[in-house]
């Protein structure tokens, strides 16, 4: 491996390397950090952000954005707590997920049919969604039945339920993106929507579907989070769009569409949670948490954006064959 290849390797795998460096650093600072139990904990805590970020990955891949995922979580949680509380979970959870889908479909409809920019559309539905949920709940905390908490604490075949949900959403998303026509067309739309239209791809259908997927993922992520805390206060899901988008971008998905994938997103979500967990383990000042996390996100995103131009330069075809 020569210098050029090393450089390419580092640039392509920045999040992974950053992750390993952080593991080593926190591991040296705290002997409780590098344990299997702690790592399982990290993944459980990362699950709801990771699931929503997987949905966000679809949106970013087509060059869109969804700022309303946190509001979607809150709407789903309050409707579930207020109106579907007495239904058994196998009925109420699918209904709640459908509600998330409907929320996403509204975004998709406004973006594709009314042709409003995604940023403005989802910013509006963020406030509308939170407003509706606050109105229904009367600005009070919404409580849930103990079954939900039991589900959150349950394990199947030794694996906690949150990780099952995370793994299932990831597997479905991964297969959809890499193995289906829809998935590959999504990358095409992200690269160049006009060209995709000319190539006979139904661009509108794909854009619409992507917001629906983001809505479903937001609902599932909300349910996972709910099963861990069992109450939905008026701040439930508030500002979740930030860690979600950060996890997605940290995982290498471009904000401009066409590049990235869900494997990286899972990584990004776990990475963010690892930092938070490491800070707790090393007894860092809680007021420093947001600062440290934002610095790490900045580094990763900075490396990512300079990566694009550096990769382009390194991978440029050479005209001359230089003899060594």
């Amino acid at each position, binding site marked *: 491996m020569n210098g050029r290849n090393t450089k390419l390797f580092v640039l392509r795998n920045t999040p992974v390397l950053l992750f390993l460096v952080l593991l080593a650093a926190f591991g040296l600072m705290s002997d409780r950090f590098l344990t299997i139990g702690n790592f399982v904990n990290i993944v459980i805590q990362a699950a709801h952000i990771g699931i929503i970020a997987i949905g966000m990955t679809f949106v970013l891949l087509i060059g869109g954005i969804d700022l309303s995922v946190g509001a979607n979580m809150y709407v789903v949680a309050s409707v579930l707590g207020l109106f579907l509380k007495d239904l058994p979970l196998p009925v109420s959870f699918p209904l709640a997920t459908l509600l998330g889908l409907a929320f996403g479909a509204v975004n998709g409809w406004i973006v594709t049919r009314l042709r409003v920019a995604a940023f403005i559309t989802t910013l509006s539905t963020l406030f509308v969604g939170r407003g509706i949920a606050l109105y229904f709940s009367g600005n009070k905390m919404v409580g849930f039945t103990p079954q939900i908490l039991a589900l959150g604490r349950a394990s199947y075949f030794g694996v906690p339920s949150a990780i099952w949900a995370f793994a299932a959403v990831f597997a479905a998303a991964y297969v959809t993106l890499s193995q289906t026509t829809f998935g*590959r067309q999504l990358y095409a739309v992200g690269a160049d929507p006009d060209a995709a239209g000319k190539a006979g791809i139904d661009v509108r259908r794909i854009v619409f579907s992507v917001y629906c997927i983001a809505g479903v993922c937001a609902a599932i992520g909300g349910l996972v989070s709910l099963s861990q805390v069992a109450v939905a206060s008026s701040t439930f899901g508030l500002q979740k769009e930030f860690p979600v988008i950060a996890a997605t971008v940290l995982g290498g998905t471009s904000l401009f569409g066409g*590049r990235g994938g869900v494997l990286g997103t899972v990584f990004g979500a776990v990475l963010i949670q690892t930092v938070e967990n490491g800070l707790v383990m090393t007894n860092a000042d809680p007021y420093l948490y947001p600062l440290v996390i934002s610095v790490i996100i900045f580094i990763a995103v900075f490396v990512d954006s300079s990566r694009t131009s550096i990769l382009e330069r390194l991978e440029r075809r050479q*005209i001359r064959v230089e003899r060594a």
Partner: protein
Amino acid sequence: MSAQAAPAPFFSAHGLCKSFFGVQVLHDMGFSLHPGQVLGLVGENGSGKSTTMNILGGVLPMDAGRMTIDGTEYRPRNPREAEAHGIAFIHQELNLFRNLSVAENLFIAGFPKKLRGLPFIDRARVRARTQELLAAVDLDVAPATLVSRLSQGERQLVEIAKALGANARIVIFDEPTTSLTTRETDRLFDIIGRLRRQGIAIIYISHILGDVLRLCDDILVLRDGHLVGGAPKSQMTVERMITLMVGRTIEQMFPPRDPPIELGEPVLEVRGLSQRGMVKDIGFSLRAGEVLGISGLMGAGRSELARILFGIDPCESGEVRIGGSAVPKLSPAACMAQGMAFLTEDRRAEGLMMEASIADNVALASLPRFGRNWARFIERTRLGDEVARVSSAVRIVAPDQRRTLAKNLSGGNQQKVVIGKWLLREPRVFMLDEPTRGIDVGAKYEVYKIINQLAADGAGVLVISSEIEELTGMCDRILVMAQGEIRAEFARAEFDREAILRAAMWHGSKEPA
């Protein structure tokens, strides 16, 4: 082809009309195609060629008219329906997704599935079919290769493979050779010959009239949205096509070039310029009032050299002097400060703000010059006057300089806007990379005139072009590049198309093969 009775047409179009915003751009267009026919379509930019093909390809709906395929009515509502009817449209700006592989690009509109009813892609079948299709167009790359790693010529072959994969019966080529090397063009023509032998009908649109004449069985000429002439190849000549296209005879393709007897001081001197893997030991000088051409095949390093000279790409060693003073560190800002201007080959991506007006585009590179007062406010009036002066000097044809957006202009006028932008800076050294690519005969002539005027005003002009005739027609001196080196130099008296081409095609050793 022999004079046997022509097969019956399977496609026909009658009375096609199209208007945009109340302006009719296509009047009563009609033609027919039989299997294996190659139909040439020529006309200036804005004459209605693209509109016709967009109707055929389902990109635009027609206002009036009728098309039939095999006797049944054909009225595509979108490109997908056109494709389903066996019509493939290979656009000038290729419609490939650079972030996807060759195989994925071929099947993006519909992948073969593993099982009926399930959405999973059958990768093995995709790979096998891709290999078949690539073999059919003589393209030797792996199906998993990303399109971003292919050359322009290779990408075009991928587009053709895609058309074959869709079982196209009509393949429309819109300016397919503008970004191809001579050799790639020959290969394309071979493939087109192969397609016609398989009974595929071809519609070939090009500004390179010699190619049209060489390739097509029948030629249609459009002017201002009207079909003004149509004849078999045997009754067409390049002169006749030009006469029909412009509605008058053009005596010559190039304005007279009378180089000044006494050239001025050197305005650009380059010595020992090298960058690993790009260019090696480049040395030349350009004098005031001179038009210097750089010829070479695609990938010879011409554009790369220009980008290095303008400081966009780095260079490891070498000395560059602009206007007599050395530029220690090349950067676009330093080069512009020394009076250098650079017209890139890709005006859409690099040269033009598509959503801005003509005036804003022209003013862009000169704004600081009009903001030298205490508050750095832009002097709108003085700027407006200057922009108007430059716009009329380069003869941009548009309803309103301040309101018309760049994206609504024809290719030729867009190019003039970019040239105007740099002219406003009154450059001493002007580098133009493929200044006439994709623009029509009339606009080309005007670009040549602008270049002549620029040289007459005392600037040094460096022109990069793939068309040798263009360089021999307008330059005082030509440098030939191959593999990142300057291989030959020709003064105007020694211009010889064949010698230039031979110098460009040398490979490896210093001796001609």
